[in-house]
């Protein structure tokens, strides 16, 4: 027990199998969490690092905010730069970038399920469960057969970046006006082969069935049938575990979701109270009340935001600011994307029990199936004889908003340029939304809310249920504060 722990209070950290560093402070009572505070303990100051540089330098700096969402960061930056310049890249470049963004998301979902999330069910505490021997063989951390297979499949999938982006992470091929590498017919068939091989791996290992069968799942009865007598695969294994442990009763937050829209043409939107709605970017603001940042007197729209750390601030308990939409916390991620896109099965799950450990993971796995098919068709749409880049000049003054969807949800960059230099750069990452601290109204962030009521057994130092809830969000802590 660390010196910071006391009866009725538990501090969990370092919290691993998340990207980056995370600490969770729990107040306990009557065998459950009564209140939670989420602390992002690392501040690097990327928004300040960007100030004063040439705007194009953002494409070198921002991917390095995060080694797991690197391409998503590049995509948000290039969108902001193109908004600034009023530039429109040729169709090939739009498709090529979208393939890279979507492939990175696939790799992240794969890593989350196999390397980060499932190994918790292979812990000794679950040794008595009927599914345990299988889970232990497949998902023991850093050793299970499915963990190893996923790492290998991901490395093969990321050959997409060897062809299109030079390397992953931290490619510079994404540039205002297009992409820096034109693809030829040979590249195109090679990309197709990589995606097809990955699809076959998913069908064999994760789903045990053709993707068409997964994509046909559209209601709760069909999902129950898949759990009861569906094909052998790790998707079904998860459904069985979730049912046995009641994971759908765990980790519910506010049931308010937002997405900036996955892919070109998919609109930004919200989903709350069982229905979709519009998203007004003008109503996004960040609250610094508990963020160890100056500027606590008011909420800041990101075009008017600031990042001045205040190490002496004792009220603050995280370096993470608290983003709010219309004054309220929102959850983002694969489940939000599926809801905003109108996915009937995810909608049925959310209408029944909201966002929870089970529905977040199911949404991610369904997205894996859907996206791998969509990427295959994007590759076929590439016109190798067409243009890949148009010359683009950036103005010396102006501002631009760039938004995209990283694996973990809505990512936005708000850029202001003065005298040909970056005057201000504000970033709100997905886990900034999900793991935000309390705001000036005392309203907790989504994870803080989701942890309330989570059961904690006597003597549990690192409560299993708390780990499931935290990891169900697939947090990326290095993006959170940046």
């Amino acid at each position: 027990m660390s010196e910071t722990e006391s009866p009725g209070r538990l501090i969990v950290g370092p919290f691993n199998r998340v990207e980056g560093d995370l600490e969770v402070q729990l107040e306990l009572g009557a065998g459950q969490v009564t209140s939670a505070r989420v602390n992002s303990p690392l501040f690097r100051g990327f928004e300040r690092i960007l100030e004063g540089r040439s705007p194009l330098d953002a494409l070198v700096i921002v991917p390095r905010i995060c080694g797991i969402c690197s391409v998503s960061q590049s995509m948000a930056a290039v969108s902001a730069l193109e908004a600034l310049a009023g530039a429109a890249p040729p169709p090939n470049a739009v498709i090529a970038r979208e393939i890279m963004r979507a492939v990175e998301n696939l790799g992240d979902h794969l890593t989350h399920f196999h390397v980060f999330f499932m190994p918790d069910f292979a812990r000794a505490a679950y040794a008595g469960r009927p599914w345990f021997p299988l889970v232990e063989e497949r998902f023991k951390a850093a050793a299970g057969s499915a963990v190893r297979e996923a790492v290998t499949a991901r490395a093969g999938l990321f050959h997409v970046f060897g062809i299109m982006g030079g390397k992953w992470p931290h490619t510079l091929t994404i540039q205002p006006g297009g992409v820096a590498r034109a693809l030829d017919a040979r590249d195109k068939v090679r990309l197709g082969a990589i995606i097809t091989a990955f699809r076959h791996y998913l069908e064999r290992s994760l789903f045990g069935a053709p993707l068409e069968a997964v994509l046909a799942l559209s209601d709760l009865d069909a999902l129950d049938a898949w759990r009861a007598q569906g094909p052998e695969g790790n998707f079904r294994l998860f459904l069985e575990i979730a049912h046995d442990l009641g994971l759908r009763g765990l980790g519910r937050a506010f049931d308010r979701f937002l997405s900036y829209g996955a892919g070109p043409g998919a609109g930004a939107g919200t989903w709350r109270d069982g229905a979709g709605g519009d998203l007004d970017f003008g109503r996004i603001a960040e609250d610094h009340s508990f963020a160890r940042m100056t500027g606590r007197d008011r909420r800041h729209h990101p075009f008017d935001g600031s990042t001045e750390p205040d190490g002496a601030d004792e009220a603050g308990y995280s370096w993470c600011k608290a983003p709010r939409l219309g004054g309220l916390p929102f959850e983002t991620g694969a489940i939000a994307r599926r809801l905003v896109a109108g996915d009937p099965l995810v909608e049925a799950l959310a209408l029944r029990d909201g966002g929870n450990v089970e529905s977040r993971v199911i949404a991610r796995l369904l997205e894996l199936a859907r996206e791998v098919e969509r990427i295959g068709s994007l590759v076929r749409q590439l016109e190798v004889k067409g243009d890949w880049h148009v010359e683009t000049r950036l103005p010396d003054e102006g501002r631009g908003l760039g938004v995209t969807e990283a694996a973990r949800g809505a990512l936005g960059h708000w850029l202001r340029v003065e005298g040909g230099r970056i005057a201000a750069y504000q970033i709100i990452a997905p886990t900034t939304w999900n793991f935000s601290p309390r705001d000036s109204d005392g309203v907790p962030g989504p994870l803080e809310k989701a942890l309330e009521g989570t059961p904690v057994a006597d003597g549990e130092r690192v409560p299993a249920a708390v780990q499931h809830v935290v990891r169900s969000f697939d947090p990326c802590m290095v993006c959170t504060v940046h």
Partner: protein
Amino acid sequence: MNLLWLQSGGCGGCTMSMLCAEAPDLLATLDGAGIELLWHPTLSEETGGEVVDLLRAILDGRRTLDVLCVEGSILLGPNGTGRFHMMAGTGRPMMDWVRDLAAHARHVVAVGTCAAFGGVTAAGANPADACGLQYDGREKGGLLGPDFLARGGLPVINVAGCPTHPNWVTEALMLLADEGLTGADLDPYQRPRFYADHLVHHGCPRNEYYEYKASAHQPSDLGCMMEHMGCLGTQAHADCNTRLWNGEGSCTRGGYACINCTAPEFEEPGHAYLETPKFAGIPIGLPTDMPKAWFVALSSLAKAATPDRVRRNAAADRILVPPTVHEKRKR
């Protein structure tokens, strides 16, 4: 050989890159070399107090530590307190944990340019006061000081790169496990020579354009990127174009400049990354070991001798003029 991996003020990209190791994959490579992960933040089961127990056991001498890998720069701020990065769950700055653990480790490996020299986290105003384990930029020192030697007798091994190639890391670790890495195998910045004694220029597919100074002017042009696009491949120490990334990639193959990410202070080139600074029309940064007069003389000669094919292709995004196919010589 056991290994403890800590992530400090970085992006985690070196771990993410390392997971792309292939033939054999990462876990098989480590198994095969007899490398046991005591703990890794991405891969290991243990979390929270279980990890703190392990760290304490190392500091108390109840557990020996063979290799300490640190990914990410060390954050000294604000005002030298290290509070910009407290290790979660411990109420203690990461810089203190790293300093104490380094004293117990047989070898200390800085994974990535952040951990080696400070890297991108130290860019611009360096708001978090970031530095490397044994360097602060080009200057020796950093967290552990210029004279630090690990128990095994080596200084910090700087596997620099942003990110690191998966096999720069795995091969350095395998060499350590095999007692195959000595002080003589490290270059002046303490980078393993097996990859740092090469230049990114070696094996670059744009070499013919370089030879004739047939240059690219905008992204997607096929020409050499040294003259206008900021490419530092002729100066950058790494084997990217002979080893290749994610199957068949490299920065220059991906269509963009090498920004010399294995070097200290690459994050502050003194100009926009993708522009070449020039004096009187001549790039300021010359190819490594090349005298300026010869560079100028050869460049003007080469430009005059540029074949039409090379000149036209350099300014296109695909091959417009293929190399001539010569008819078989008559016997």
